[in-house]
C-alpha cells in the first residue's frame, strides 16, 4: 500500500521587472479559504517593493510606448492566449478564494475577452482621437501619447477586474504598477501569464499587499504620473487625491465607472494630447515670389 501523495504547493511572490521576488524582509499575508484553512502565504509588498516596481515601470516605459501599436496589440493578444491556457487553474484559484464555481469560469473568460478587445485598439485609438487642426499657414496636428507610469489600485472583481483596469492603461503605451489587495493568488498567476506573453520586463508589475499600507506611497511617488483608483473608503480616496497634487498627478476615480465593460474612453483616460505645429515654407521664403 502506498501512502497518499503529498501535493507540491506553490509559493506566491511578487512580480517586479519580469521576476518573482519575495516581498521585502519576507513579509507575507495569509490567504485562507472560506473554512479558514490556510491556502497560501502571499507576498505582502512594502514601500520599498513599490519603489522597485515603479523604477522597473519607469525604465520599461520608453521601450513600450515606442513599440508599434500593432506590436503592442499582438502582445496583449498573446497575453489573452496565455490566460486561456491557464483558464482552469485561474478558475480553481478564484474558487479557493471565495468565488462560486460557475462565476469563476465566467470571470476568467470575460477577462480574456476584455484583453482581446483592448488588443484590437492598440493600433487604432490614435486614429480616432488624433486630429489635423485647421490652422492657416502651418501643419498643425494633435495626437495621443501615453502618460507614463500608472499606479493602479485593483478592484474586487477577480481576474476580470484586474484585466479591465490594467489593459486600457498598457494598451495605450503606459507601464503599470498594479496593487492587488484582493485575490492575491489570482494576481500572481496572472503575473505568470504576463511573464510568458512576450511583454517586456517592467511593463506590468504586480504587488500583492495591503492598500492601507501602500496607498500613501502610490499617491506621492514622483515617478508615477497617474493613479487609477477603483474603490475604497472615502478617507483613502481623499488622502490619495491630496497627496497626488505633489506632482500634479492625473487622478482617475473609477469607483463609479463601469470599467468591466471595456471602452475606448477607458484607454484615452491615460493619454496626453500633444499638439505639434510645423511651419510650412511660404512662397516668399522659398523664393517663388521673386
Amino acid at each position, binding site marked *: 500500500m502506498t501512502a497518499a501523495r503529498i501535493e507540491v504547493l506553490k509559493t506566491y511572490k511578487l512580480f517586479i521587472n519580469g521576476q518573482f521576488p519575495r516581498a521585502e524582509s519576507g513579509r507575507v499575508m495569509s490567504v485562507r479559504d472560506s473554512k479558514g484553512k490556510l491556502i497560501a502565504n502571499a507576498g505582502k509588498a512594502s514601500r520599498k517593493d513599490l519603489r522597485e516596481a515603479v523604477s522597473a515601470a519607469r525604465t520599461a516605459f520608453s521601450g513600450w510606448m515606442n513599440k508599434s501599436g500593432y506590436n503592442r496589440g499582438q502582445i496583449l493578444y498573446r497575453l489573452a492566449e496565455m490566460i486561456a491556457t491557464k483558464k482552469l487553474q485561474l478558475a480553481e484559484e478564484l474558487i479557493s478564494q471565495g468565488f462560486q464555481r460557475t462565476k469563476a469560469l465566467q470571470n476568467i473568460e470575460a477577462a480574456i475577452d476584455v484583453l482581446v478587445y483592448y488588443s484590437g485598439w492598440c493600433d487604432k485609438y490614435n486614429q480616432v482621437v488624433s*486630429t489635423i*487642426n485647421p490652422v492657416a499657414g502651418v501643419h498643425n496636428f494633435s495626437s495621443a501619447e501615453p502618460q507614463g507610469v500608472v499606479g493602479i489600485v485593483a478592484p474586487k472583481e477577480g481576474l476580470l477586474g484586474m484585466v479591465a483596469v490594467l489593459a486600457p492603461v498598457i494598451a495605450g503605451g503606459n507601464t503599470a504598477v498594479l496593487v492587488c489587495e484582493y485575490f492575491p493568488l489570482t494576481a500572481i498567476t496572472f503575473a505568470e501569464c504576463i511573464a510568458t506573453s512576450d511583454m517586456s520586463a517592467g511593463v506590468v508589475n504586480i504587488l500583492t499587499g495591503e492598500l492601507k499600507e501602500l496607498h500613501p506611497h502610490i499617491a506621492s511617488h514622483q515617478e508615477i504620473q497617474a493613479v487609477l483608483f477603483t474603490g475604497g473608503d472615502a478617507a483613502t480616496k481623499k*488622502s490619495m487625491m491630496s497627496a497626488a497634487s505633489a*506632482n*500634479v498627478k492625473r487622478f482617475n476615480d473609477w469607483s463609479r465607472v463601469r470599467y468591466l465593460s471595456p471602452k475606448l474612453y477607458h484607454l484615452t483616460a491615460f493619454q496626453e494630447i500633444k*499638439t*505639434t*505645429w*510645423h*511651419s510650412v515654407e511660404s512662397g516668399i521664403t522659398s523664393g517663388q515670389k521673386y
Partner: protein
Amino acid sequence: MDFKFAPAPESADIADIKATYGLFIDGKFVKATGGKTFTTYNPANSKHLAKIADASAADTVKALKAAQSAGQGVWKKMSGAERGKYLFRIARMIQERARELAVAESLDGGKPIRESRDFDVPMAAAHFFYYAGWADKLEYAFPGANPAPLGVVAQIVPWNFPLLMAAWKIAPALACGNTVVLKPAEQTSLTALKLAEIIQDCDLPPGVVNVVTGGPEVGKSLVNSDIPAKIAFTGSTEVGKYIQKQVAGTDKHLTLELGGKAAHIVLEDAALNQAVEGVVNGIFFNQGHVCCAGSRLLLQESIADGFIEKLKKRMRTLVVGDPLDKNTDIGAINNKEQFKRIQHFINSGKEEGLTVFQCPTKLPDNGYFIAPTLLLNAAQSSRVVQEEIFGPVLSIQTFRTVDEAIEKANNVSYGLSAGVWSEKGSRIFNITRQLNAGVVWANTYNKFDPASPFGGYKESGFGREGGVHGLHAYLKINI
C-alpha cells in the same frame, strides 16, 4: 545704424474706463456686499485706473447660485443651436469693441498695444466664434458617449492674457451647456468686466455668466463651495497644486493649466535668422509673461557663439516702453510683485556666476520695466533653468548631440511647451516626438489658434483648451 521712431501713442481715452465697476451677478452689475472695493493700476505709470468691487464670500455664493438656477432653468433647456447663436453674438460684439478692449487691456496690464490689438482681442473673438459652432454638434465629438453639461463651472484666470483667458474659459464652457462664474486676476479685471458688459448687451440670459472680482480669497471661496461641478484654473503651479489638494475627496472635475519652462532648441542646420526671430518672439512676447514662453534656449555648440551675437544684435532693436505706443515691442511688467520676482531671479543668476546680458535700453522712469535679459552659460541644475521666471529673461545652455538636447529639454518638472529649429525634416520629427510637452512648435513659436489644443504634461497641469479636445473639459461623457 540707429533707428529712432517718433512716438505713435494710442489714445488712452478710447479705453472708456468707468470710475467704478461692480460685480456681474445674475445679469446685473452690483456692489459688493459690505461695499468693499480695490483699485486697479496702470503698471506703466502706477496711475489709478478704476475702483472695482471686492467680492465677499456671500457674493461668490450669490454668483454661484445665479449660475446654478440659470443652468437648471433656461440654459439647460435651450437647444445647442440657440446657445451657439449667443456665442456668435458675443464674438461679433468683441470684434466691434476691439479697439476699446485692446486699449483697456494695455492700460490695465502693461502689454504693448500692438499685441493686445493684433493678438489678444482678435484671438478672444475667434475663440467664441470657434466654440459657437460646436454647441449643436457635440455628439460628433464623443461618439457613443452621450455628452452632457457638467453644471456650474468656476473659472479662475491669470493676469497675463486677461480677456483672452476669459474667452478660452467661457466659450467652451457655454458651448457645452454649462453656466459660469469667472474670477479674473485682481491685477487685471477691467476687460473681463467689459466682456460682462458685452454679455449683458448680447442679452445672454441672466446668470449664465457671472463675474466676481477680488483677490485670492474670492478664488478660495469658489474652489471650496459645494456648488461648482468643475473648477478650471490657469495660473501658477503652486496655486494649481493647492487647488488640486482642496478638491481632494470631492467629485469636482478639475482642469489645470499651470506653469512652464519651455526648451527652445536651435540646431546647427536651422535657418538661423528665422530662428533668432522665433527665439525673440518666444521669450519677449508679452514681457515673457507667458506660461509657454521659450525661456530656456538650447543652442548646438557649433553655432552657439554666432547665434548669441545675432540674438544680442536683434535684441538691441527692441523698443521697451509705453505700452500704448504702437512702436513698443516690450511693455510694462504687469505688477510690482512680479517685477520684484523677476529681479530676484536675475540676481540669483548673477549669484550663481552666470553672465548676464541686458539691452542697454533707456527704461521709462515710472512704472515697472525690465530690459530684455540673457543669462548665459547656465547649468541644467541652475534655478533659472529649473524654475519659471515669467519675465523677459532667457537662460542659455549648449548641447552637442540631438539626444543631449532632448534630455536637457525634458529634464524639468514642467511639460507645457517646447520649440525646435532645424531645416532637416526627419530630425524635426524625431525631436518633436520625443519632447515631453503638450504643445511643440517646429520652426515657429508662440502660435495659437482656437482650433489647436493647448495644455501641459507633468506639472504643467492637465486637460486641454482649444480644439475638439478642449470640449472634453466641459462635458460629462458616459464612460
